[in-house]
């Protein structure tokens, strides 16, 4: 167990009750809205001239009234296609953007006030946003963060040792940041963001552009961090593997509106009306189109798409009618489910 190897996590105390909103949630958003005003013009020189005189202004509703609550210690996936309003929401939660409407509370603070007591307890990790000073080794940036966040020396040492061990940072610490690869830099960014042991962690695409091994490492690290520090984590990712590995609960938004908030398994149930049945037949492939939609068939292995309510019946009949050596019933891959959710949300 890693728990014994890394005893420091146990020393992290949960937020005192005073720091949690009256309703008990660590993060709460109620009818949160953000509207941007953008100037638009047609392409071409005439349009450019016209725009000198009169600018066409359009309001774009990036977030159109979403509500959710995160309990302390929860790790939640925040999903949506590009432009759904995920980053805008994360920025409002971390105090970088003022909401146009609605109410936000994080650890009992109003983020947009950017109080120091609030900023010391949160972190926002964004793809390429740097915590790190480009020209110097990451270790120096870490030391600077220690000073800025006023982490006591002893805590800092212990946390740093842990982060170095879990993320395997040792060989990277002494190199100037600009000489690190994308994945190495991301690991250092994450470490720098967590040195002050934030109680709420917002992650915007923490694994973007990384190879599979690095993704997996960061994923398991985040799971450990959440489990042991009791921090509340809200994470966006385009990699469903991240979400499946880390989040029991997901919040899905599209066009700035909430589409779904609940367990990942529930999302699959709600948005997929089909299951996949894979049967292995003795004596070669047979025509099973009478049982459902045949997705593929070769070497006696047939994949069928079947409406969920019919699954049990079809399975029974398949077993009764055919020499089946193996049969599995699966939910469709999560990517497919998400695609379907977005497609439905778009209409």
């Amino acid at each position, binding site marked *: 167990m890693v728990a014994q190897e890394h005893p420091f996590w146990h020393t992290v105390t949960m937020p005192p009750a005073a720091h949690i909103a009256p309703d008990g949630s660590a993060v709460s958003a109620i009818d949160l809205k953000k509207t*941007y*005003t953008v100037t638009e013009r047609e392409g071409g020189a005439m349009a450019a001239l016209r725009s000198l005189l009169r600018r066409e202004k359009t309001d774009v509703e990036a977030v159109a009234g979403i509500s959710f609550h995160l309990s302390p210690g929860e790790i939640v996936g925040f999903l949506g296609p590009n432009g759904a309003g995920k980053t*805008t929401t994360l*920025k409002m939660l*971390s*105090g*970088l*953007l*003022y909401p146009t409407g609605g109410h936000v509370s994080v650890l009992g603070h109003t983020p*947009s006030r*950017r109080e*120091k*007591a609030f*900023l*010391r307890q*949160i*972190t*926002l990790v*964004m793809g390429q*946003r*740097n*915590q790190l*000073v*480009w*020209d*110097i080794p990451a270790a*120096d*940036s870490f*030391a*600077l963060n*220690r*000073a*800025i*966040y*006023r982490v006591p020396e002893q805590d800092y040492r212990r946390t740093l040792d842990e982060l170095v061990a879990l993320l395997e940072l040792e060989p990277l610490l002494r190199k*100037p940041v600009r000489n690190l690869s994308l994945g190495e830099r991301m690991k250092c960014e994450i470490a720098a963001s967590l040195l002050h042991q934030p109680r709420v962690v917002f992650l915007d695409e923490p694994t973007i552009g990384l190879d599979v091994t690095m993704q997996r490492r960061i994923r398991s690290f985040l799971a450990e961090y959440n489990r042991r520090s009791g921090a509340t984590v809200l994470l966006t990712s385009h990699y469903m593997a991240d979400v499946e590995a880390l989040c029991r609960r997901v919040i899905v938004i599209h066009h700035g509106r909430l589409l779904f908030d609940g367990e990942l398994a529930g999302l699959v149930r709600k948005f997929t009306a089909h299951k996949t049945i894979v049967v292995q037949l003795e004596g070669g492939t047979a025509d099973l189109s009478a049982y459902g939609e045949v997705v593929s068939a070769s070497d006696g292995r047939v994949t069928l798409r079947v409406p969920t309510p019919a699954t049990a019946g079809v399975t029974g009949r398949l077993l009764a009618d055919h020499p089946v050596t193996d049969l599995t019933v699966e939910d469709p891959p999560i990517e497919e489910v998400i695609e379907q959710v977005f497609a439905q949300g778009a209409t």
Partner: protein
Amino acid sequence: MREFAAIYLQQFRTTFASFVQYRASMLIWMIWHILEPLVYLVVWSAVASSGAGSVQGFAAQDFSAYFIVLMVVNHVTYTWVFYEYEYRIRHGGLSGALLRPIHPVHADVIDNVSSKLITLPMMLLAAGILAAFFHPVLHTTAVSLAFFLPALVLAFSLRFIVEWTLALAAFWTTRVSAVNQAYYVAALFLSGQMAPLALFPPAVREAAAVLPFRWMLSFPVELVLGRLSTAEAWEGLAAQAAWLGAALLLMRAVWRAGVRRYAAVGA
């Protein structure tokens, strides 16, 4: 307070380490800071020598003294925050700073001070070499010298805060360099950078005394040259302190408004 000192110390180490990486660009800045006053020095000395031997009481050696001291004072007080802010806001680097529980001005102050600490010895060396060639004459007194250090610190603080505040124009416009240009031209004349303020017509001199420019550059130079009475020195310090107070208030207001805008339109 002690925690603040720890932040400053650590930020200093960080900045020092990254500045060492930019030796070449530092050298170019320094050459510019030596060449610019050197040109004025040569021109004005020539003007003084060709005429009646002096211009409005400034002989060639007085010009030498003025521009050599000015070179050092200008180097100590200059900032590059205009460039920084334009870049920061365009490329979103400010978001990271806004997430930290510390005002971003601190990092910029330390950046500036640490680079100065690295380059000042070289600047003093350059001043020494120029002095050997141009034979400056200083009328420095013990009293005026005693006033110099606080005046220099106040001049740096004032110039820094004023330029930092102006750089915040980047929150509203992507053309900060235009603001920078307008400011630079005004400062060129009114801070004594191009010529001693004593040479300007009374109207310009009065304007310079009312505006903050003289207190950002010319005043400490005038002190070293021994051109001010004790009473004038006290008045100067008071003017610097008053302007600094006003600039800090303005900075606070502009910063808040800027952040509000940044947070409204999208970071």
